[in-house]
């Protein structure tokens, strides 16, 4: 049988003196040893795997994140790399590491000992409906819509939708001042992402010091107690600083 070509899949960058062991990773049914590729005090955590495109299915995504979790358990300065990057050989990874080293050098002290946590706040349907029913202008517009045929009421429906959007905008502002602001005071940095879906009122990531993790958890709990009849909290972590590292590598097409 023809021997399959292999490539180097990379998971994350770390700051290290070397000699790290992060075990094996199972990829599509086969165990592969992970290893590091070092340049100065930086290293890439990688594995040698069959050279092919890996699809972002559940197993593969969890495999990638699983390795990063293991690394985070042993190393306090982890720079996450997005899913699915595989290089021809170790020399290419070394060249990459060398070329982005200036950025890594700058990032290391900023993320050392820090973790990311995520908080999504989603409005409960019953609370949202009860809340909007107290807006007289919206209820009046709802009656207008109901009184007309579907075709005749088209613009009235659009108007009603705009009112609903403004309603959500107000709720988002309330959540930002009442939930996000107090948390942000405990965080080193914050990142507000766009809400996913209409009922989401906050989609935030916070970079916190590991020493502050307990205090931050306590604050989230305090805010959850206050809001739990109105909204659901989805609180996740610890993550590596995905939302706080943005190195986009893209370059000129190779010209020949």
């Amino acid at each position, binding site marked *: 049988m023809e021997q399959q070509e292999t490539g180097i899949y990379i998971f994350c960058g770390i700051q290290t003196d070397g000699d790290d062991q992060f075990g094996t990773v199972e990829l599509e049914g086969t165990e592969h040893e992970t290893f590091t590729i070092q340049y100065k005090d930086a290293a890439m955590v990688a594995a040698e795997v069959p050279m092919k495109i890996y699809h972002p299915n559940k197993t593969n995504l969890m495999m990638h994140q699983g390795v990063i*979790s293991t690394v985070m358990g042993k190393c306090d300065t982890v720079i996450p790399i*997005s899913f699915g990057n595989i290089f*021809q050989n170790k*020399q290419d990874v070394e060249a*990459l590491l060398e*070329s982005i080293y200036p950025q890594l050098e700058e990032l290391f002290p900023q993320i050392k000992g820090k973790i990311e946590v995520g908080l999504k706040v989603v409005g409960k349907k019953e609370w949202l409906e009860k809340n909007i029913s107290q807006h007289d202008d919206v209820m009046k517009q709802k009656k207008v819509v109901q009184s007309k045929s579907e075709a005749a009421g088209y613009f009235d429906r659009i108007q009603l939708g705009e009112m609903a959007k403004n309603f959500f905008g107000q709720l988002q502002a309330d959540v930002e001042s009442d939930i996000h602001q107090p948390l942000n005071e405990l965080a080193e940095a914050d990142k507000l992402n766009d809400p996913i879906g209409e*009922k989401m009122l906050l989609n935030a990531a916070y970079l916190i010091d590991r020493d502050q993790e307990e205090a931050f958890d306590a604050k989230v709990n305090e805010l959850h107690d206050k809001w739990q009849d109105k909204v659901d909290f989805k609180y996740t972590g610890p993550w590596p600083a*995905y939302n706080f590292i943005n190195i986009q590598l893209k370059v000129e*097409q190779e010209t020949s």
Partner: protein
Amino acid sequence: MAIEKTTDSSSLAEVIDRILDKGIVIDAYARVSVVGIEILTVEARVVIASVDTWLRYAEAVGLLRDDIEEEGLPQQQNERSPQFSI
């Protein structure tokens, strides 16, 4: 009632939210500016359908329940009323 952080590995949605386009991202069709590097990368951008319409906000609070919810909202407004398409 205490709320605990769910760990990073237990939620696929949270993982997807991060690992596809955050951190160090290497462009699919570009070569890093170091001679000789060949890289394969998956075209793995999540395409979030443009659901950001006002009508969907209205649906989210049940304002349009009577006439629309049973059949679900149309994919786009203009599928329903093509004469008003923008």
